[in-house]
């Protein structure tokens, strides 16, 4: 008899409590864009049930479903039986990697972070024309997507922080590496150590993150506990801005896309909306919002591994922005901005950007 996989040891009862009602199918972004029931949470739990029952074994044939999950947690939110699918999937991916079964894009991600300091393997980071590693009250932590793919967005955020006279510094940041835990690997101690040292050297009282995923990693992963132990708090830029007075407004029709990492995973829904309502009285929600928001399709390694479906998920989200005739889609995550912008069709004239970049633009226009 084979040894039990860790996912069985940890999650057997939960997997068996999936009653196959299929309610997850209504909200799963992968199902929504593929209409392939094997890929929704029920399909995944059935696979794991059959593995536990000895009918099939973990192997490469299962990669298309077990590695195709954005970990958006909409299924968990809607599961009558309370099955925490994203956590189960993360554990199964580790079991898969352990036996040598993994999507090549995920293996590649781990290899890149062994050899480089960011997920794009770019060794020359943008300096954003700012001094780094200063003594300051806050560290602004950009994140890989903001640093290497959405640099204009980041530059605008930094301009806004300057306009608001925030005492912050950038650091020689490296990938928080939290994503490795989602794709079957372990958080990278080398990168953790570098981030902790560089943050603590600044004497900052708080880290402001631009990326909701880095925010989750710093707050929830025990490897980053030394930050809190040294009295450094972690806040997301949307929390930082909620009490800041903004003396700009727009008449444009503005909507807000909840990033899964900030919304369903951290319960932060109102801070961004509070800020947006101050600057955009003509604020309107999309059909799915708050805890029901649709995923942009980028998370859980899906953008890298299943690019076509990832874009299809983003298109479904953008259709909702089109439906309410929005002029601007704001969000609080550069990864969402990146995927939604890539998926935007020519006929979709609305703009997609972060709240901070949009506020900075309004200030530019003033």
């Amino acid at each position: 008899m084979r040894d039990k996989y860790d996912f069985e040891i940890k999650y057997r009862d939960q997997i068996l409590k999936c009653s196959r009602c299929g309610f997850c199918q209504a909200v799963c972004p992968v199902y929504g864009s593929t209409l392939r029931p094997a890929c929704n949470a029920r399909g995944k739990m059935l696979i794991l049930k059959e593995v536990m029952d000895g009918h099939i074994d973990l192997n490469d044939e299962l990669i298309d479903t077990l590695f195709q999950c954005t970990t958006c947690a909409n299924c968990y939110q809607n599961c009558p039986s309370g099955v925490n699918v994203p956590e189960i999937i993360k554990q199964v991916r580790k079991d898969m990697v352990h036996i040598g079964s993994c999507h090549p894009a995920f293996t590649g991600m781990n290899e890149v972070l062994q050899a480089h300091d960011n997920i794009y393997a770019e060794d020359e980071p943008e300096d954003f024309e700012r001094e780094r590693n200063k003594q300051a009250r806050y560290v602004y932590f950009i994140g890989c997507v903001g640093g290497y793919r959405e640099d204009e967005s980041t530059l605008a955020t930094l301009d806004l922080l300057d306009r608001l006279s925030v005492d912050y510094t950038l650091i020689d940041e490296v990938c928080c590496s939290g994503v490795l835990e989602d794709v079957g690997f372990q958080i990278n101690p080398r990168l953790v150590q570098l981030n902790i040292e560089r943050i603590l050297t600044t004497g900052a009282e708080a880290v402001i993150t631009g990326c909701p995923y880095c925010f989750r990693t710093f707050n929830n992963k025990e490897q980053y506990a030394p930050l809190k132990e040294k009295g450094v708090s972690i806040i997301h830029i949307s929390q930082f801005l909620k009490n800041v007075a903004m003396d700009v407004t727009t008449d444009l029709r503005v909507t807000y896309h909840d990033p899964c990492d900030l919304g369903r995973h951290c319960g932060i829904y109102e801070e961004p909306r509070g800020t947006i309502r101050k600057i955009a009285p003509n604020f309107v929600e999309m059909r799915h919002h708050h805890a029901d928001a649709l995923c942009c399709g980028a998370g859980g390694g899906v953008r890298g591994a299943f690019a076509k479906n990832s874009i299809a998920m983003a298109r479904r989200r953008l259709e909702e922005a089109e439906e309410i005739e929005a002029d601007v889609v704001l969000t609080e995550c550069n990864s969402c901005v990146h995927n939604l912008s890539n998926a935007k069709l020519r006929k979709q004239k609305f703009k997609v950007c972060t709240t901070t970049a949009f506020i900075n633009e309004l200030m530019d226009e003033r």
Partner: protein
Amino acid sequence: MEDRIKEALKEIVGADNYTEQLIDMVSYSYDASEHHHRPTCGVWATTVEQISRILEMANRERIPVIPRGAGTGLSGMAVPARGGIVLDLNHMNRILQISIEDRLAIVQPGVVYADLERALAQHGFFFPPDPASGKVATLGGNVATNAGGVKGAKYGTTRDYVLGLQVVLPDGRVMRTGSHAMKSVSGYDLTRLFVGSEGTLGVVTEIILKINPKPTATSTSMATFDNLEDAGRAVSQIMHSGIIPSVLEILGRDTIRAINQNTDLNLPEVDAMLLAETDGYTQAETEYQMSKIMDIFRDNHPQQVQQAQSEAEAASLWKARKSAYAVLARIKTHFVLEDVTVPIGNVAALLKGVEEIAARHEIQIATFGHAGDGNLHPQILYDGYDPAEVKKMEAATADLFRLAIDLKGTLTGEHGIGLAKAPYMTLEHDAAAMEAMRNIKKLFDPNNILNPGKMALEG
């Protein structure tokens, strides 16, 4: 299955719309029941022509074809019990027409109930039979099951709204039944024959549905009773009162206890809780109806009667009922959700009988359901990995079906027969009725290729 048949399927639907991958085969083995069996392959069909060609070939080659919607059924209806080809209809998901002046909507089978509901809401209309799985269930599945919902008491079930169908028969012919008209007595009612036929006679590819204007006002109330008989009498008296509530739900003692053990709702642990909703077009109208219902509650020794004064209060009253399924789903690894239905006057007797069955077999059965149309959902909770518990569950199920039939009721009010209740068909239907059903099956599907093994049609 021979390679030439697989190649022919790929040629019909396109290689991208054909699968025999393990992950799809596992997924298509199940529905929301405890039954499962692997198919040989699956196809994502997109046109009537494709379905016609698939069936024509399957009929010639004697290969089972199992039409499938969202797979949310609770009776094993979509489980490929004999293997074969799963015909996934979710890609045929277009609302073809909404005609308010004709009071109808025409849809493809893969349209999700909630998507039609949203489209109709823009016109102030709705399609009343709303299964609990409406967010995900497809209308093709609803037609195949003749699905019901919480509004059955006033608005009936899917069958009452289907005006006509396009169906592909097992030999590949495309047949139209019914019409676009509100009324028709033209020939045999083939439409009604196909609604609830569980995919055993043909594949539904287009559905003409009657739609209703959506009532704009509702009133909601709740009453608890220390004695089941009092609750049962209240339900009967409501039927006498001339008021038809849009919803009348009941929660039994075991359900209430389970909710209390698993939530912070702190419900009174009574024999029964009744929840009522009335609907109409003015608040005065719904309040008048509700006042009659509450008078009846008060006449029957309630422990408590409460009317919601706002939408938020109504939502809070509904919380207990809405949490029932989720709470019960978490207690044991397995459950069977039954849907026995009895004449409304026998609801209290059914509840009492279920409690006795649970005690006799030493198994937990929590009951809730639609008191307003006599359709209850005893949920039998057990550990499917413990053979002793499985035995108890099976014995309790058999007793439950006998009880429903003894009370002049039926095995199933809205979930269908499928595999789960097939062994009990003869309990409800006499030899002549069974023979008639089997002859109808032979007439349409002489080679038994469509969803074989269901509804005891082969006996």
